[in-house]
């Protein structure tokens, strides 16, 4: 008869959303008091108002605890993101000098949007990311397929989709979902073949869209994830494919010179600011801070985990763009190669933050009491 008692459904929901500590310490006593009140109501007719009033309280309590936990999670992962955001926004603000061109204002808009998105993303948990990883990667590959078929063709390549008046560089958005999806697939024994298919699909789509840099990022991330999970065949496949995209990158970058929304920001910043090299160095440093710090944090944590694999793979993927920029003297990362891609980069950094946090600290919502050794 226990299932008929009031509060059981809200309690089940709380167990899904809250840490076991919050459930035991805060939520369970509240439900127990409700059930006691309901069982000992003076008259049966009083039970309905008791349940209604108590449920309003319980739902309010649940919302409060969920928000409070989300805030704590964000606080524990946002320091890196805030540092990165501040540095990047500072670089973007340089472009807002009195002579600032419109392109720079556009960049700042995306930086602000990226910061907000990243901070919101840090409230998630690694197990949510894990659950969404493979479907997210498949969705991202389908989007790349849409670009290959229906994308806007500019500079001899087909990389953009027109969304609400904006040219969306879809591949930039696909790097994180595909890398994380491949890491998740590699970690589940039953889905390792899925990772192979994804890597081959990425290569094929990159050739179709003439967009080698995001493909290279995905290959580097896949190679790291495969090596960490001892999938040497896939690691070798990704490593062998990399040079093709490295050599293809400069030629497609030079092809982009005629595309105004790619080179516009780069050219105007270079024209307006003599300290161009300094900005480049700052932007590259900003891009590298989070991955370097994450790898350091991962090195400190112990034991294999999905979080470690995915975070290391994604951090490695993020190294690629600044590394290429340094090698080929390309524009400032996040400024010249900015636009909506900035938001995707910020989200990737937030995902790394969440993964590193959850790799270092056990998920409080997972009941680990049964893992304790028996006395």
């Amino acid at each position, binding site marked *: 008869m*226990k299932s008929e008692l009031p509060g059981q459904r809200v309690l089940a929901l709380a167990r899904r959303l809250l840490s076991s500590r919050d459930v035991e310490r805060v939520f369970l006593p509240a439900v*127990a008091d409700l*059930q006691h009140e309901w069982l000992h109501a003076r008259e049966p007719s009083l039970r309905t108002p008791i349940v209604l009033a108590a449920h309003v*309280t319980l739902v309010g309590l649940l919302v409060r*605890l969920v928000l409070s936990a989300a805030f704590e999670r964000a606080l524990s992962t946002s320091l890196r993101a805030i540092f990165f955001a501040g540095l990047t926004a500072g670089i973007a603000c340089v472009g807002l000098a009195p002579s600032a061109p419109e392109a720079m204002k556009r960049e700042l808009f995306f930086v602000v949007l990226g910061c907000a998105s990243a901070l919101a993303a840090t409230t998630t948990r690694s197990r949510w990311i894990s659950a969404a990883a493979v479907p997210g990667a498949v969705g991202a590959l389908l989007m790349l397929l849409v670009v290959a078929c229906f994308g806007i063709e500019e500079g001899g390549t087909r990389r953009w989709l027109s969304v609400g008046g904006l040219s969306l560089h879809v591949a930039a958005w696909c790097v994180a979902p595909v890398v994380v999806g491949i890491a998740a697939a590699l970690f589940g024994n039953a889905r390792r073949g899925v990772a192979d298919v994804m890597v081959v699909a990425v290569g094929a789509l990159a050739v179709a869209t003439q967009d080698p840099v995001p493909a290279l990022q995905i290959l580097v991330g896949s190679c790291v994830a495969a090596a960490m999970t001892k999938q040497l065949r896939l690691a070798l496949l990704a490593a062998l494919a990399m040079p093709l995209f490295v050599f293809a990158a400069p030629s497609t970058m030079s092809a982009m010179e005629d595309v105004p929304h790619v080179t516009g920001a780069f050219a105007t910043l270079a024209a307006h600011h003599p300290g161009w090299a300094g900005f480049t160095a700052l932007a590259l440093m900003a891009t590298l801070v989070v991955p370097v710090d994450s790898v350091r944090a991962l090195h400190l944590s112990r034991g294999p985990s999905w979080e470690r694999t995915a975070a290391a793979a994604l951090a490695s993927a993020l190294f690629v763009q600044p590394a290429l920029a340094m090698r080929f003297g390309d524009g400032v990362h996040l400024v010249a190669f900015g636009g909506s891609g900035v938001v995707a980069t910020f989200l990737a950094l937030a995902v790394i933050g969440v993964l590193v946090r959850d790799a270092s600290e056990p998920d409080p919502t997972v009941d680990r009491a049964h893992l304790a050794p028996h006395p």
Partner: protein
Amino acid sequence: MPSLSLSKTEEVILRLLAEHGDLYGLELVERSSGVLKRGTVYVTLGRMVDKGHLRVLAPPRDEVTSGLPRPRYRATALGHRLLDAVDVMLRRKVVAT
């Protein structure tokens, strides 16, 4: 981790427990004359347990109920001493004025 900080609401809870002995969360709300709210008392109680001011007591073995077991709360020695310290400070304040 034990803490020596005490908010007004926490003080009310400690006073009620000192006066009435072990109480359930709902009983604390009922006896506080509106000072404690049902929506917040459990969060405060959980925090006080973390701070070492309260201890959670398991339900008595002979308690027959078909609902979830209701935890009762008891002030710890630290909780009692904090309350004593607050009383001493209040007395000093009254004498000073």
